[in-house]
């Protein structure tokens, strides 16, 4: 008999149907991947098992866990199950822990609640499980508070809370989505080990097919609250017999068609029309960056016919450090350490690195939103450093930004016309109302939206459409450089594929240069010509995208590549294991 059996589960919240006739079974020691795009009902399925649904929710059908009818159980029965037999790990480690309680209190709390152990015993067990998840007491005493830990460490604490009592079932809802790839790999390893050690069943919820393929024995694909396909992971994903499965798999591996960048002309080479293969190695040698001193050498600013678009010279940024004593001056923290590089017109460059490596700080300085402590940044031949806002206006016209979160980056009370037209204030001459509408209409058209959309409010758009809006806002001044900070990491795979296509298309049509800041190497592979690997404030590796990603030289580059889940590789490995 299976540990968890969900039969014909239908769920509605108020009058909105959420889940329709879901079937799912899970046995001890098994890993089930629950995959789907946002709004497909993955999290609601998990919350139904925990019975932590919103009050207006109404569930029908059968959910049996270890012989207990979950939907009919009393609240007391559920409280006994939660945290004891069923543990749950959530997506956002930064907010999943109570900021005013120590990690020791928070881990021991569940132990005491369920076992009635006294404080000392519970703390002893908490110490053990924290040690097991990789937070040894010597470095991470129980008296630490969540704010003293990084995101990955906090996620370990959440896993410790969930696994403290060796649950029979662990539900992990996007446990690694908020973490960088290296941390993701570590957390996934940890979860896999915990499954093996305790014959725990794991319900792994993710939008990332590659992650699920690496982890799950079986996979359930959800769409709009319905199960599309269910089965053995390797077979389901290699056969792709269901059209939606195929669509998801294709979208996850999507690489936009784009002509490689020709550095000598500083624009797209008209001859090179080959499609960049999914392997990412198809940059033809004719279009290769010819750098005499090897690929890690910085492109010297004087080379090439034109002045480079952007030159970053020995840029350093220090932040005031944490004060350790009242009287001693705090040691500054060096976020960016002596970074130099150059970018040409129309070039698409990825800046990759783990979270906290300084990539966003560097981007802020390039956008003149932050001042370097040392060094100089030149944009289109003009020095940005040391200029005031009025002097920066001409430069601002030519550089725009796209942020990660398509929800947070718009004022919800303004109409699209006003939002997209926002950067126009940096123009020398302010366009008249009619002209302005025309410009907004054109920008919307360019990103695949309708001109009529300009009279709507942001909440009327989906996540992907909102990201299109932020791109429209970025290109309305016809900038030469767009800095995009994780522009697709908040999006579903199919939408992500569309947005990547859009970026590639705009790069070609408008000749916009991109600086993509990302920890996701698949994004870098899909739409950039060049990759810079950043580590602890320094650029440690730099070269053509395909080369760096296929054969990284630096330690940091190797770690990133090794940690990045790859759907193709994962399927191949699974098939191999099964013979």
């Amino acid at each position, binding site marked *: 008999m299976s540990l968890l059996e969900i039969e014909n589960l239908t769920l509605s919240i108020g009058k909105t149907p959420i889940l329709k006739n879901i079937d799912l079974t899970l046995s001890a020691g098994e890993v089930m991947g629950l995959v789907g795009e946002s709004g497909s009902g993955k999290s609601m399925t998990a919350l139904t098992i*925990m019975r*932590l649904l919103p009050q207006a929710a109404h569930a029908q059908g059968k959910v049996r866990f270890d012989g207990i009818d979950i939907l009919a159980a009393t*609240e*007391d029965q559920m*409280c*006994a*199950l*939660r*945290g*004891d037999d069923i*543990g*749950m790990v*959530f997506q*956002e480690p930064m*907010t*999943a*822990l*109570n*900021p*005013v*309680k*120590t990690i020791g209190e*928070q881990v021991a*709390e*569940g132990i005491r*609640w*369920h076992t009635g152990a006294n404080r000392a015993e519970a703390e002893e067990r908490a110490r053990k499980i924290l040690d097991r998840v990789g937070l040894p007491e010597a470095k991470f005493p129980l008296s630490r*508070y969540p*704010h*003293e830990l990084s995101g990955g460490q906090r996620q370990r604490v*959440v896993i410790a*809370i*969930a696994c403290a009592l060796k649950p029979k079932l662990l539900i992990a809802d996007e446990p690694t989505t908020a973490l960088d790839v290296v941390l993701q790999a570590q957390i996934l390893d940890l979860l896999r080990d915990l499954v093996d050690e305790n014959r725990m069943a794991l319900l792994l919820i993710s939008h990332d097919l590659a992650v699920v393929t690496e982890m799950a024995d079986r996979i359930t694909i959800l769409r709009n609250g319905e199960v599309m396909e269910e089965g053995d992971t390797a077979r389901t994903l290699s056969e792709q017999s269901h059209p939606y499965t195929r669509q998801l798999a294709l979208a996850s591996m999507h690489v936009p068609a784009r002509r490689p960048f020709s550095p000598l002309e500083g624009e797209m080479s008209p001859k090179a029309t080959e499609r960049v293969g999914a392997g990412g190695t198809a940059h033809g040698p004719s279009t290769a960056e010819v750098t005499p001193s090897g690929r890690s050498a910085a492109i010297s600013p004087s080379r090439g016919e034109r002045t480079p678009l952007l030159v970053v010279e020995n840029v350093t940024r220090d932040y005031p450090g*944490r*004060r350790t004593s*009242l009287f001693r001056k705090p040691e500054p923290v060096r976020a960016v350490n002596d970074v130099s590089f150059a970018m040409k017109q129309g070039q698409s460059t990825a800046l990759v690195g783990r979270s906290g490596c300084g990539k966003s700080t560097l981007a802020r300085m390039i956008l003149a939103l932050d001042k370097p402590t040392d060094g100089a940044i030149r944009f289109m031949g003009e020095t940005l450093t040391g200029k005031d806002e009025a002097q920066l206006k001409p430069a601002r016209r030519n550089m725009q930004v796209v942020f990660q979160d398509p929800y947070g980056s718009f004022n919800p009370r303004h109409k699209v016309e006003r939002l997209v037209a926002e950067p126009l204030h940096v123009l020398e001459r302010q366009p008249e109302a009619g002209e302005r509408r025309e410009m907004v209409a054109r920008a919307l058209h360019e990103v695949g939206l309708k001109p009529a959309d300009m009279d709507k409010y942001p909440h009327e758009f989906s996540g992907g459409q909102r990201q299109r809006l932020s791109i429209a806002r970025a290109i309305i001044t016809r900038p030469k450089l767009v800095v995009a900070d994780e522009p697709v990491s908040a999006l579903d795979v199919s939408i992500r594929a569309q947005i990547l296509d859009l970026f590639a298309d705009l790069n070609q049509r408008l000749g916009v240069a991109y600086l993509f800041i990302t920890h996701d190497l698949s994004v870098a592979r899909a739409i950039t010509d060049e990759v810079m690997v950043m580590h602890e404030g320094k650029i440690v590796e730099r070269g053509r995208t395909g080369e760096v990603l296929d054969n990284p030289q630096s330690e940091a580059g190797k770690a990133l590549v090794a940690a990045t889940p790859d759907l193709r590789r994962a399927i191949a490995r699974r098939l191999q294991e099964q013979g």
Partner: protein
Amino acid sequence: MTAYLLKRLLIGIATLAVASIVVFSMLEIVPGDPARLMLGMNATPDAVQALRDQMGLDQPVIVRYFEWIGGLLTLDFGKSYTYSVPVLDLVTERVVVSLPLALIALALSTLIAIPVGIFSAERRGRAADTISMGAAQIGVAVPNFWFALLLIYIFAVWLRLVPAGGFPGWSAGIWPALKALILPAIALALPQAAILARVTRSAMLEVLGEDYIRTARAKGMPRRTVLWRHALRNAMIPVLTILGLQFAFLLAGTIIIENVFYLPGLGRLIFQAITQRDLIVVESVVMLLVAMVVVVNLLVDLSYAIVDPRLRTNR
């Protein structure tokens, strides 16, 4: 933590310094000669001048400011122009009425507001929530002096449980003194409690929507346990802020309430002193009130650091 508290302490001292300059210069530019006021309209110019010399009114402003500050620091507040007694005596006589009044009111408003706020948040959207928040809305809207009159009518005139006004003094015993203070304290506390209850409710609701509440629920604890163990302490952070601000309003409220209840407190003293141009009393009492507010806010800052560990390590 010490750095944080030291910083707060320095800010408190700076506030006092700025307040002293403002208070001193405000009264400096108010028309009216205190010496003439003390001697009356019929006094001879010579007599007025003699008194001015004696009071040091002809000295430069800076000198008088620092003499005043020096006096404050050594508890020598000077002599009242109208009562001709040391201001310190006047003030101590009144502080023993006003400070207990404000503290009782503060305690009452906290004791009423926080449970009501939690109760409402727990029953969000239900009848109990609607009723208690409706009552709180009325509490915010009704002015405290009207409320005071209503209380006097019910408890003093009609039920005859407590006196309608006046203060027997602490020498008459604790119980009679408290009896005289209880109605004014309630009148002061209720509007504050109404505001605080609403703040508590919304802070609780916000915290209850946080991810860590879900984490705690996933540990298997019932809603109510999670509310007490995890939500309350986090919700107290905004509540403490409002509490600190409210103390200043409570002190200001005593001016009206003491007049309604005929209590010989600081509020009445300052009211009389202003109408009689007794500048030295006004200055001293205002500075005393400022000092009380600063001290309370320091306590609030200290309690922040106790509630929120992020303040203890991050500065």
